[in-house]
């Protein structure tokens, strides 16, 4: 019993996103009011954002901003090497691990920083969510102008009788 509990706790982030997502999906399917549906859609999208961001999480790590950047040496050092590095940017995937060992002297510990990639991706997803929301609201206004209501059953009634 305890093991199941700890298992669920260890995956709590997934449970959270799934519950949130299902709430959104339910609102989109079952709600009658178009604005409520749009709200549901937002929740639905936000759930995925939560999911992604939780992937990036790493125990014992902090936000992905390097702490020692104020120090002149690493920057200068990096700047010297940078020309070469920027040029052969074509590191293969397998080289990445090698670099992790190789660049240990840079004093940047991978374990100290959380994974930045999901954050970047989610910035995009947030923007997409906002954009979709905007367009959805614009359409809802058009619907309201046409039918004078945002309740779906009333609109359907008008469509059937009209």
């Amino acid at each position, binding site marked *: 019993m305890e093991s199941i509990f700890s298992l669920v706790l260890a995956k709590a982030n997934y449970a959270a996103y799934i519950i949130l997502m299902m709430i959104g999906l339910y609102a989109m399917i079952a709600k009658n009011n178009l604005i409520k549906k749009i709200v549901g859609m937002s929740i639905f999208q936000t759930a995925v954002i939560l999911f992604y961001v939780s992937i990036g999480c790493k125990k014992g790590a902090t936000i992905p901003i390097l702490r020692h950047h104020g120090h002149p040496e690493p920057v200068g050092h990096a700047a010297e090497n940078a020309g070469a590095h920027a040029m052969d940017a074509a590191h293969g995937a397998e080289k990445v691990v090698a670099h992790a060992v190789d660049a240990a002297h840079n004093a940047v510990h991978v374990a100290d920083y959380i994974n930045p*990639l999901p954050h970047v991706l989610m910035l995009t997803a947030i923007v997409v969510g906002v954009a*979709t929301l905007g367009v959805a609201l614009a359409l809802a206004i058009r619907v309201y102008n046409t039918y004078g209501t945002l309740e779906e059953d009333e609109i359907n009634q008008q469509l059937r009788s009209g």
Partner: protein
Amino acid sequence: MKILGKLTILLCGVLLMVFAMEFPNWGDPESPASTHLSPYFIQHTMEDTAVPNIVTSVLADYRGYDTMFETTVILTAGLACFLLLRIERKKIPHRYYRHEPTGVTLRMEGEKYPKNSAVFQRMDANWVPYDFVISRTCRLIIPFIQIFALYVVAHGHHSPGGGFQGGVIMGASVILFAISHNLRTSIKNFSEKTAALFSVTGVFIYAGTGALCLLFGEVFLNYSALAPILGGDRVMARSHGILVVEIGVAVAVTAVMIWIYYNLSSAGKQDEGL
């Protein structure tokens, strides 16, 4: 419908949960996501781009191409709202203005209005009075919000922030102005055409920077090609390039936010509003 919906939802939820059990634990440092690609970014951001904020460097450089389209998505939303909602304002044959000190009402033909608008007050049914305290307070705060927005944009290299965040704050400040006064005043200060042109310009700064790299013989968006213009070596050029595109993003986001607000709040009439 509701029962069916609930059943579907329940089924989906259980299914998702079952498969989620195979996922690595929350915060597991050994998960593929944390071990495969992210170490590269964490370790190389300084030597590649000289930007300590890894999110910024990934956002605007490694995956800068994505971000360009992200900005385009915003612009698309702005265009979409405009296209869907905007209605041409009916030409109003004449308007009435009251001269505040004397109480005399004037009738003005066409779109002309008295220049000295502090003394003249337009009269029409749609006009919404706004509260003196709120409007003055907001006028007081707004400059600080805007300065903070600029800070967020400019300091995105070293702290959480960047074009999107700064742009949204900047946009919010204008929207706050529109709310605290009214839409008409806001449009008088920052017209729809300006908003539209700024949003295009913002994206153009981004895409244009990328295209400039093409002209310099490098691949699209490779800012290191811009070293001759931006100064510094190729790595610093990347850092500067990131700043340039972040500014573009900020301009675009600010303008689109305002543009969408104008259209949504007035249902496209761009006259009165909230």
